[in-house]
């Protein structure tokens, strides 16, 4: 396994930002020529450019649709009389349509795009049979489209994250199997001896999803088991979809982008491996966590709560590692958008993980269960962690694929701040409102409608947050469209490059179309 020699690092970079890891050259000790790496990357990027761009492009469309549906959903929660003559616009359909458009349409599609590119780069081999991916892309998006509109039409199942009707889930499953097979074949044909931790996470996610999706859909809808067992299986799927599919993909991105941009290897590779296995094990057992107090055997919930406390161990391993990897280089957050998005995303993951482990205790859970605090916790993971990380990945990957720098730094800044402010506002409101709601629900003297009047202001703030976030998404989509349309000249993101993507490829290359990565810092190291 080789890494880019230090000499390819931006000559303008301040000395303190230069990568200091020792692993220049190949494992055999032969120094790698810069042009050789460029040629390799050019070939790899060219082999996945079309499918990866298709996935990102579709994801951004879904993000916009999901944002619009979410704003309407939130608006109708505050003003229930609005547009209520249309069945397909009733809030009970808008809500799952918005949720699934976000989860499968945006996060799923973008995460697949990012994972494909990471796999191609890290396996260091151009991918063959990209046409398979393009067909799978079409099938996947057809499935999500039928699913979202099926829910609006009235075919939703009302099982969280499994609302898509059967005709949509079949397409989604089929598409994903092709993608997963393709990823596994790519992994088997890699030209490196070892696998980097991001590849492990991608493989874990891509093996788990078909298994879990098939299990849940078969046992709930195709050959339905008795309803009490359905409840557990549905809860297991909804929890595992996030913790064993999306979280691993988010971590795969973070483990790639953070070391790349900082120009140093991750601090402790052994710890990364411990974090990997313990997370998958404990988070996988925590699936019945949301059923606390429910009409099910007590051992189930106790088992899951114990497991969710155990996830503190991988959280500690993962975050200590990232902290040591950063070690003083936080200034890069100011200059490098992808790093900034990913890092804030990781902080959200930490917050969500700590909250998840601590709120499992029965005393706390009996109060906050069934409140809008659940929505806050969900947003912290699916939006705070995942969406921000995927934004970071988009900024990192798409400019490299196109060999173009992002057009407007101010659009990126707006995107970041609008999303952060809107998301912060919505999540804080839901969390505070949820605590009040929980205390009220626990006091039988407070009637439901009185309690509702207490939390209405928080629901309104959540609507404001949703609108602000949508503004951020429009900036993001505008950035992407400008880049894809290649309108205008390539511009610099920051006046003085620091490292990584801040070093605009166009700045150093004669032609803006020169495939880049050439000025980026080292590839993440693989440590045996």
């Amino acid at each position, binding site marked *: 396994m080789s890494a880019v020699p230090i000499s390819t690092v931006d000559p303008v970079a301040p000395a303190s930002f230069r990568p200091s890891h020792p692993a220049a050259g190949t494992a055999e000790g032969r120094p790698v020529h810069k042009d050789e790496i460029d040629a390799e990357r050019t070939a790899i990027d060219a082999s996945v450019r079309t499918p990866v761009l298709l996935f990102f492009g579709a994801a951004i469309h879904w993000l916009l649709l999901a944002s619009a549906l979410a704003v309407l959903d939130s608006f109708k929660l505050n003003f229930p009389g609005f547009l209520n*003559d249309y*069945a397909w616009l009733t809030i009970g359909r808008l*809500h799952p349509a918005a949720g699934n458009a976000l989860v499968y349409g945006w996060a799923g599609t973008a995460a697949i795009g990012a994972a494909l590119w990471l796999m191609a780069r890290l396996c260091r081999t151009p991918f063959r049979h990209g046409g398979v991916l393009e067909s799978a892309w079409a099938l996947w998006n057809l499935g999500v489209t039928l699913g979202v509109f099926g829910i609006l039409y009235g075919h939703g199942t009302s099982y969280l994250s499994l609302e898509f009707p059967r005709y949509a889930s079949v397409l989604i499953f089929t598409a994903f199997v092709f993608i997963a097979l393709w990823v596994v074949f790519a992994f088997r044909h890699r030209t490196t001896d070892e696998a980097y931790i991001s590849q492990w996470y991608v493989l874990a996610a891509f093996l788990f999803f078909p298994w879990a999706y098939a299990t849940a859909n078969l046992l709930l809808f195709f050959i339905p088991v008795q309803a*009490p067992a359905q409840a557990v299986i549905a809860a297991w799927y909804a929890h595992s979809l996030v913790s064993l599919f999306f979280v691993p993909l988010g971590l795969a991105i973070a483990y790639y982008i953070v070391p790349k941009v900082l120009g140093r290897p991750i601090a402790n590779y052994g710890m990364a491996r411990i974090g990997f296995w313990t997370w998958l094990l404990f988070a*996988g057992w925590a699936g019945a966590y949301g059923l606390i107090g*429910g*009409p099910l055997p007590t051992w*189930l919930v106790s088992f899951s709560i114990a497991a969710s406390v155990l996830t503190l161990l991988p959280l500690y391993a993962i975050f200590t590692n990232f902290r040591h990897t950063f070690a003083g280089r936080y200034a890069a957050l100011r200059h490098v958008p992808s790093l900034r998005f990913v890092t804030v995303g990781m902080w959200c993951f930490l917050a969500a993980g700590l909250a998840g482990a601590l709120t499992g205790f*029965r005393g706390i859970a009996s109060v906050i269960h069934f409140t809008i605090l659940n929505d806050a916790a969900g947003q912290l993971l699916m939006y705070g962690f995942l969406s921000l990380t995927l934004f970071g990945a988009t900024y990192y990957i798409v400019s490299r694929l196109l060999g173009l720098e992002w057009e407007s730094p101010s659009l990126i800044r707006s995107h970041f701040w609008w999303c952060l402010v809107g998301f912060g506002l919505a999540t804080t409101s839901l969390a505070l409102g949820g605590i009040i709601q929980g205390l009220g629900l626990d006091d039988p003297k407070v009637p439901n409608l009185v309690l509702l009047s207490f939390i209405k202001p928080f629901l309104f703030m959540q609507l404001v947050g949703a609108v602000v976030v949508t503004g951020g998404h429009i900036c993001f989509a505008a950035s992407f469209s400008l880049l894809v349309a290649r309108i205008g000249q390539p511009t610099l993101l920051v006046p003085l490059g620091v490292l990584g993507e801040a070093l605009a490829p166009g700045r150093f290359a004669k032609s803006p179309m020169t495939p880049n990565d050439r000025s980026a810092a080292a590839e993440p190291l693989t440590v045996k």
Partner: protein
Amino acid sequence: MNRSTSLFVGLLLVFLTSWLALVVVPYIQMGRLLPDVDDVTQDQTPAAFSGLAEQGRQVYAANGCVYCHSQQVRSRVSGADIDRGWGERRTVARDYLRDRAAYLGESRMGPDLANVGSRRDKADWLYTHFYEPDAVSPGTNCPPLHFLFSRHKIVGQPSTDALQGLSGDVPKVHEEEVVPGHDAKALAAYLLSLKRTSYKLAEAPEEKTDTP
């Protein structure tokens, strides 16, 4: 066996533990439950849903009631559900034996519905709530489900099942009436049949409400 094979095997084993613990074991434990059968009358508890109620369950699912309403009563140790009057006892797995799908719910923006058929035993009240929730629950943000009803000019005699007591201008000014459609009737039948804590099951003794 090379390193990537051991990675695959490791992943499969890890996922298998989660799958066994949270899918297979719960299926063995709860996938083949049987109702109580009365020795004398041969009545089964819990009772099966009617065909109309089953159609109502589909209306319930299609229109996302579950996003604001749970269907489970927790024991007094876990919450104030019983003190709120949502049921006489906690619900247990067998209470859902007859359901085609279990909508346990994760949010209580609205009240729990596990036993709603015992509390709200009038279809008319439910119809008014579906059409104009604010008329019977002032300040609620439950959505008006106008699309479950037919609103039309009164021709000849007014319909016998037209909604009464709507607060808006519907009934008089335009000489119109609002009549529940098939889906509204099915949904009401479903809700009226949700009486999960009104019968006894051995594993769920009634809990006294006056002692903590």
